[in-house]
Structure formats: structure tokens, C-alpha cells
């Protein structure tokens, strides 16, 4: 802004001419990656952003460290390799459900049904791989996922075509799909899974050597993508982060990968050696990568954010709102289906004990704790995974301490409240400016 700009007359409340403040806000809001040309600029801009409250994933990472220190001081078993890997496996369904919930949250909607939709997905897969039915594992899993996606389309269509609030439609889904799940499970109430592959999803590990190779390949792919993207930015004359920042990012990914593999490759068995990266960790990473790509790099993702930010603007820009919304609910339910398969795999069965109500609340909590806004338009796939990790850490840590389920619920509720409060306060700050 030019310095000659005068403040607005007091008679015009909507005028936003507070220029120094506007400039400062702008500085805080911009991703340093697109304004800083040198490492020094970059770190200064990043620090300024963090101080200004635009800290991205930082609070949840800080919270995670805090929780780890707390539980470790209470119980020295918390940060053992075995427990950390256990925590990752326990957290996987939460992370996947939160990834599914993220689609609805980005729209500014909510999907309360995904807990029992996950149950439906698991139940269908379990019923189909039973000896009496005898489907191959992949066909059963596919059928479960397709059914979940169809549920998402159904609910999404009702929400968009009839213009009903997603809260009510998916609340009906929460009740209705629980009923359908109980019907499918029938009198026994439990369908055991004897298929080796499905059970392996949550319990099998990569061999230690394979773990290293897979990790190095993943980091190499990530590094190549980041390197290519930022080199292209630099080449096209746009403001781009310096090479040093690119290298630091890749190095950070490598360090994170090495740490995870080191932890996972530590023998955590009691009687027989158990080591290596669990399959389910790779599964979560794959879903995370796919949804990150979808949300950040495709038109669909862009429209999702646009609808969450200003649906009217998106409509005027020619975005077909109902189609995008329905697709978002479909992807949410589909992701929930993956979570349902993982849950079934971990328990090696599906039973009426599956509590979809708690699961969906944990999913919403995980997404919001991770930094996705309840008010739509703000959030990332990675937030869901980090938030799911927090939920899993609380669950696991309090379990180690021997706290009851009651205490776990209360603490999780408090963490959720804190996260929502931060979300509401920061979004009020954004609106009020």
C-alpha cells in the first residue's frame, strides 16, 4: 500500500484502510516459500508467521512433543520403540477417518456417519472373505470400499439436491448405517476374518532391509518432486525459495524417514523377534500422499477450498457446487471404508462392538486438533494424520497409565475443545481483521 493512503472515515465501518496493520497481516499470511529469496529471509519470514499465529502444523507438533514428554515422565514405557510402533498402528484408523472427515470439513460441512460407514466397509469385506462366500481378499476389500463410496454418493446427493444440512443427513446416516451393520452382522454379532492378507494389513511388517529400501525410495521420490517443483519456479523467474531451503526440506524428510525406520526396525518382540515398518504405516502414507495431491494440485481440490471459503464465489466462477460436494462426501466415505478395513484387520474380526459414534468424534477431533478448520476452507491432509497421532498418543498414554475409558474420553474432549477454541479464535481474528 502507498503511504499516502488515508484512514477511512469513521462513518464507513466496512472500510478496511488500516494500512500498516494490513501490511503486517499480509506479511504474516504469505507463505515464506513465495516471498523469500534467501535462507535468511526465509527463516525470518517463517519466524514472523509463527509469532503471528499462522503457524500451520506447528502447534500440533508442539502438542505431540508435550504429550510425549508428559507420558514418558509418567511411564518410561511410553517412548519405547515397541510402544511407538503400537501407537502408530492404533492411530492408523483415526488418521484415516480424520483424512475422510477432512473432505467434509473443508467444505464447511460435517460428516457424522463415517464411523459406521467404516463399520459397513469392514463388515462387507469380512462377510465376503468368509469361507462360505469365498471371495478373494482383494475383491472383498474392493466391494467394501465401493459400497462405502456409494453411501457417500447417496448422502452427498441428498445433502446437495435436497439442500438439507449435512449435520442432519449424516446424523441419520450414523443411526441408519449402524442399523444396517447390525443387520449384516446378524445374530452372532461377530464375523471373524481368517483371510491372511487382510489380517496382515495391520499386523504384518516389512522386513528390516526392505524397510530401509522403501524409505529411501519414498524420500527420493519426495525429494525429486520438491526439487523439480522449486527448480521450475526458480527457472520461471517467480519468487522461489533458495536452493538451501529445498535441500533442508529434503534433508528433513530423510531424517524423519531414518528415525521412523530406526524405531520400527528395533526388535519389539517379546518371545519372537518383531521388527520392520508395519504395512499399515505405508497405507496411511499412501492415502496421505494421494489426498494431498488431490487437494493441492487438482481443480477438484481447488474447488473444494473455494466452496469452503466462499460458495457463492465458486458458483459464480462456474464451479458445479453439487457435483464437487457430492464427490467430497464420496471420497470421505471411501476413506472411511479404508479405515474400516484396517480396523477389521487389526481386530481380525468385525463385531457389533464397533463404536462408530466414538470413532467419528475422534475423527473430527483429530482433524481439528491437527489444524483443519470447522468453518471450512482451511486445512490439509497432513493435519488429519498429525491430529490422529495426538488422539492415538492420548489414548495409548492414558491406557499405559491404567486410566479408565471415562478418563480418556474426558481428556480427549478437553483437547478437542482446546483445538476448536483455537480454531474459532483465530478465524474470528481473520474475519475481524
Amino acid at each position, binding site marked *: 500500500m502507498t503511504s499516502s493512503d488515508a484512514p477511512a472515515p469513521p462513518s464507513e465501518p466496512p472500510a478496511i484502510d488500516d494500512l500498516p496493520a494490513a501490511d503486517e497481516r499480509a*506479511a504474516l499470511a504469505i507463505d515464506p516459500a513465495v516471498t523469500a529469496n534467501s535462507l535468511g529471509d526465509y527463516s525470518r519470514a517463517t519466524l514472523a508467521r509463527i509469532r503471528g499465529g499462522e503457524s500451520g502444523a506447528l502447534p500440533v507438533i508442539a502438542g505431540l512433543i508435550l504429550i510425549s514428554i508428559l507420558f514418558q515422565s509418567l511411564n518410561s514405557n511410553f517412548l519405547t520403540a515397541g510402544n511407538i510402533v503400537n501407537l502408530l498402528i492404533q492411530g492408523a484408523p483415526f488418521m484415516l477417518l480424520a483424512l475422510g472427515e477432512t473432505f467434509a470439513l473443508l467444505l464447511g460441512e460435517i460428516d457424522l456417519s463415517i464411523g459406521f460407514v467404516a463399520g459397513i466397509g469392514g463388515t462387507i469385506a469380512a462377510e465376503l472373505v468368509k469361507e462360505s462366500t469365498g471371495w478373494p481378499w482383494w475383491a472383498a476389500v474392493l466391494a467394501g470400499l465401493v459400497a462405502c463410496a456409494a453411501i457417500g454418493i447417496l448422502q452427498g446427493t441428498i445433502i446437495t439436491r435436497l439442500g438439507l444440512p449435512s449435520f442432519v443427513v449424516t446424523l441419520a446416516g450414523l443411526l441408519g448405517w449402524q442399523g444396517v451393520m447390525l443387520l449384516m452382522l446378524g445374530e452372532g454379532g461377530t464375523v471373524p476374518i481368517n483371510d491372511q492378507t487382510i489380517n496382515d494389513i495391520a499386523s504384518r511388517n516389512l522386513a528390516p532391509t526392505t524397510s530401509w529400501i522403501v524409505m529411501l525410495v519414498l524420500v527420493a521420490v519426495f525429494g525429486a518432486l520438491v526439487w523439480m517443483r522449486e527448480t521450475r519456479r526458480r527457472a520461471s523467474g517467480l519468487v522461489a525459495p533458495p536452493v538451501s531451503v529445498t535441500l533442508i526440506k529434503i534433508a528433513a524428510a530423510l531424517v524423519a524417514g531414518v528415525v521412523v525406520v530406526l524405531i520400527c526396525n528395533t526388535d519389539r518382540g517379546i518371545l519372537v523377534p518383531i521388527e520392520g515398518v508395519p504395512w499399515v504405516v505405508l497405507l496411511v502414507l499412501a492415502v496421505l500422499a494421494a489426498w494431498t495431491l488431490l487437494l493441492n494440485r*487438482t481443480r477438484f481440490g481447488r474447488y473444494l477450498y473455494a466452496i469452503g471459503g466462499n460458495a457463492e464465489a465458486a458458483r459464480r466462477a462456474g464451479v458445479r457446487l453439487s457435483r464437487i460436494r457430492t464427490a467430497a462426501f464420496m471420497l470421505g466415505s471411501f476413506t472411511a471404508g479404508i479405515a474400516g478395513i484396517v480396523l477389521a484387520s487389526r481386530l481380525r474380526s468385525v463385531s457389533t462392538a464397533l463404536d462408530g459414534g466414538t470413532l467419528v468424534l475422534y475423527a473430527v477431533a483429530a482433524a481439528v486438533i491437527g489444524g483443519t478448520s470447522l468453518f471450512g476452507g482451511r486445512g490439509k491432509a497432513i493435519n488429519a494424520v498429525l491430529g490422529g497421532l495426538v488422539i492415538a498418543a492420548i489414548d495409548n498414554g492414558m491406557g499405559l497409565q491404567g486410566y479408565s475409558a471415562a478418563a480418556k474420553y474426558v481428556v480427549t474432549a478437553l483437547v478437542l475443545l482446546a483445538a476448536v477454541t483455537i480454531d474459532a479464535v483465530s478465524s474470528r481474528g481473520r474475519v475481524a481483521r
Partner: protein
Amino acid sequence: MSVDSSVQTTDATAGAAPLLQLSGVEKHFGAVRALNSIDLDLPAGQVTALAGDNGAGKSVLIKCIAGIHTPDAGEIRFDGRPVHIRTPRDASALGIETVHQDLALADNLDIVQNMFLGRERLRHLMLDENSMEQAANDTLASLSVTTVRSVRQPVQSLSGGQRQSVAIAKAVLWNSKLVIMDEPTAALGVAQTTMVLDLVRRLADRGLAVLIVSHNMNDVFQIADRIAVLYLGRMVAVRPAAEMDRQIVVDLMTTGASTRTNGGESP
């Protein structure tokens, strides 16, 4: 108050065919005649201000041009050809862009994302951010919008004038020929209003036709080459701004006629 005779007044650009010509455009809503045989020419390279009291039909008229309403009768010619503008997409395809009063920007998206919303460029099926960012930079630079720090900052962090500039730049990005603006300076402070009006002027200087709806007489006389006045759904005057003054416009807006003279005479 015969309407039609007064409308066909001379323009500064007499000779060149106007970019958009409305003749006899009517719009009814039930028994209500919102627009009554409207004739209006919008020449390229000129700013036409559309004045009128509340309920005079300004919004209905711009919605007819923008494809939100379809006229019940009358003809619209664009570049000399008769056209039917049935949807906002039709309007965009012709090169007619509208900057709405509420701007229709998504706060959570950055400037580039807003400017390309609905028309993103793709490269290997993925969004081509670099090319879009360069185009946004170029457009803003060509309009001399230099006050934004980065086209990658979210719109929420912009001031009111900057938002308006982004909304206008968004309209210009698409090789548009006619830009319609609804109260672009409402809710802006003095300096920001000047900034936006300068921008509007630059659009006309680039050869675009601009139709600007405004209540603010200061703005109208500062920016407009021609002034069109609507009164109860009828076009009571379309004249060069130099032939009008405030009192004439206010008289026309409130009574549909003016006895004052300032170079030209209303019926």
C-alpha cells in the same frame, strides 16, 4: 417525458459502432415492469456510468447484460452482431465480465487462485501454478496494481481497495471487452476510492468498455465519460458527462426530468 428520443444522443466516439447496443430491452417480473424499452450504447474505450435511484432498475439492467436475467423483449447487439446472453457463461464467452458489489472472492484462497477460479490452467492434469502466477503478476502489473506484496497472499489479508483491484483484475484477465462494475467504491475510504477509480480509468484507456453503477456523484463525475440515468425502469438520459452536472443527474434520478441545462437538454 418521451423516452426514446432523448436516448440517441451523440457520443464522443460517434462513428465507431458501440461495443454493446441495447435496443428496446424489456424485463418484467410478474406485473412489475422492471425495465421498459431500454436503449443504451456502450462504446469501447469509454466509462459509462449508470445512475438511478433505488428500484430504478440498475441491477436488473446489468443482470440482463451479464446473463443472470434474460430480457423479455428487445435486442442486444455485441460487436454489431445480435446476441442472446442466457447465462453468465454466455456473457463470459463474449468477453463480458461483471465485478459484483460483494466481489465474490474466496478469502481463504490467494490472489492467483481467486483470479483463475473456475478457469485454472492445467499441465499434465495438475494445476499449472507457475504459469497462472506469472499471468496474474503480468495482469496486475499492466493495471499498475503495485500495492500487493505478493500474488500468493490470501485475499483475507488484503485491504478493501486491494480486494476491489483483485476483483477488477480478475475480470480483465480473460481478454474481456466489457467490464460491468456494481458500486466498486462503496465501503472504500478516500484514498482507496481514488486507487480504484484510477484503475477503472486505465481499463477504459486500454480500450475496454466499462459500465459502472454508482450512487456516488463524486465518483460518477470523476470517472465517467457518459452518464446514463434510469428512472422507474426507463432510460431518461444518456449523455456525455460534460453536458451534465450533479443537479441535472439528481433531478433525472428523482423525477425523470430536469429543467436545468448544461450544454444539453433533456426532454
